[in-house]
């Protein structure tokens, strides 16, 4: 026993290393799993506060481009209102339809922390469970497509797993042909303006500048534009091709995002939980 103690004491550097390294690795691996209890991340109160204060200053730097994008979206929405009014004016019908509440509600939030330089990027927004945000809600940017999925929620803050993350996979389709694929980022290059659509069946014809939209099979509503095709390659001996796309969204200047609240999401989740697991 005493010899063992002397042995451990002599090589204490190594044993301490094993212990601490194991804790670190376990934390890192557990971090990917569904349930998390530790909040050592940016939804933490202290960390969130630092980023929120920092953002007060940074907000001004991008004010111009944010204004432009909001104005552009406003213009688009106004045009849509006009066209709707035009149809209404020909035939006034008043319908009190209580069943037909829209399935998706948008909630605007401000980005208080964003990163684009890592392999796994995480965004923090200033809305939390007090505003009705729950994990796995989709997040989009005004008029420019997908941003990511909500990951962790605290009372007033939430972290969003950005599209620029190794675990993010979003179901998309090519607008012209409705071919289904899944959108991933960071395979082979970490250019923040480019992403890949994988698992598209070979027999579809893809042209450069085709638009890619969300399919509605993942939690995103269908038809949200994602990007345009820049390159498609067929790998031999494979039934699927992978398409390189240019994202509409510029992640480096993200300021405001919309979180989409899906009315039927809990119902769908409950229903799909009944499927047998392999």
């Amino acid at each position, binding site marked *: 026993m005493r010899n063992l103690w002397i042995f451990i004491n002599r090589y*204490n*550097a*190594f044993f*301490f*290393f094993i212990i*601490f*390294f194991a*804790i*670190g*690795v*376990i*934390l*890192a*691996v*557990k*971090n*990917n799993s569904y349930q998390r209890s*530790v909040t*050592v*991340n*940016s939804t*933490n109160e202290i*960390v969130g506060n*630092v*980023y929120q204060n*920092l953002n007060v200053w940074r907000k001004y730097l991008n004010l111009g481009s944010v204004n432009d994008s909001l104005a552009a979206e406003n213009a688009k929405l106004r045009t849509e209102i006009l066209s709707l009014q035009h149809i209404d004016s020909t035939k006034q019908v008043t319908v009190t339809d209580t069943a037909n509440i829209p399935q998706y509600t948008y909630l605007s939030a401000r980005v208080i922390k964003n*990163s*684009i*330089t*890592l*392999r*796994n990027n*995480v965004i*923090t927004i200033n809305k939390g469970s007090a505003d009705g945000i729950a994990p796995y809600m989709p997040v989009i940017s005004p008029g420019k497509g997908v941003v990511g999925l909500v990951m962790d929620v605290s009372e007033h803050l939430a*972290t969003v797993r950005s599209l620029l993350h*190794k675990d993010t996979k979003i179901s998309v389709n090519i607008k012209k042909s409705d071919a289904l694929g899944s959108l991933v980022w*960071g*395979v*082979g*290059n*970490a*250019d*923040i303006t480019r992403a890949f659509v994988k698992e598209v069946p070979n027999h579809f014809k893809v042209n450069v500048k085709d638009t890619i939209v969300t399919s509605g099979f993942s939690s995103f509503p269908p038809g949200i534009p994602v990007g345009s095709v820049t390159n498609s390659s067929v790998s031999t001996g494979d039934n699927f091709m992978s398409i390189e796309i240019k994202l509409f969204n510029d992640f480096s200047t993200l300021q405001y995002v919309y979180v989409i609240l899906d009315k039927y999401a809990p119902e769908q989740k409950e229903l799909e939980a009944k499927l047998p697991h392999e």
Partner: protein
Amino acid sequence: MNSRLVLVNIGRWFILLFIQILLLRNLSFYNMATPFVYVLFLLLVPFGTPNLLLYLIAFITGLTLDAFYDTLGVHAAACVALAFVRILFISVTMNRDGFDEPEPTLGNMGFKWFVIYATLCTLAHHFVLFFLETFRLTEISYTLLRCVFSIIFTLFTVILIEFIFYNRRMR
């Protein structure tokens, strides 16, 4: 270990983490090279620090970084790896009992010793960091490339900072 040294180290911890989180977090060259200058703090922890304390400091530093980077455990593991390499390197290159200098700075230890020391420590740190972050071997070439470029960037910055602040005190 006197109290002045402790205060200097606490001050250094805050300044380096401040720079890392607020400034360098947003910085990268072509998404290839990302500097992690906060490793300088762990490199400069005084010589006489007990191993357990050193590991604790490394772990807590890493965990703080993780909170701000939203990568729980990745930086912590990397910092612990750095601490391990640091202990090994110091025990191999110096005799155990008498440390003439209080801390392993460039000015105290000379250019050659410090560069080898910093290179080995940064190497361990960045390898653990990038591979834990990616956590798959299918992107190994890209991860290695990022790792190597980041090591060069970090080392360059660390040695630059050392030259700016410690050269004057060199005897």
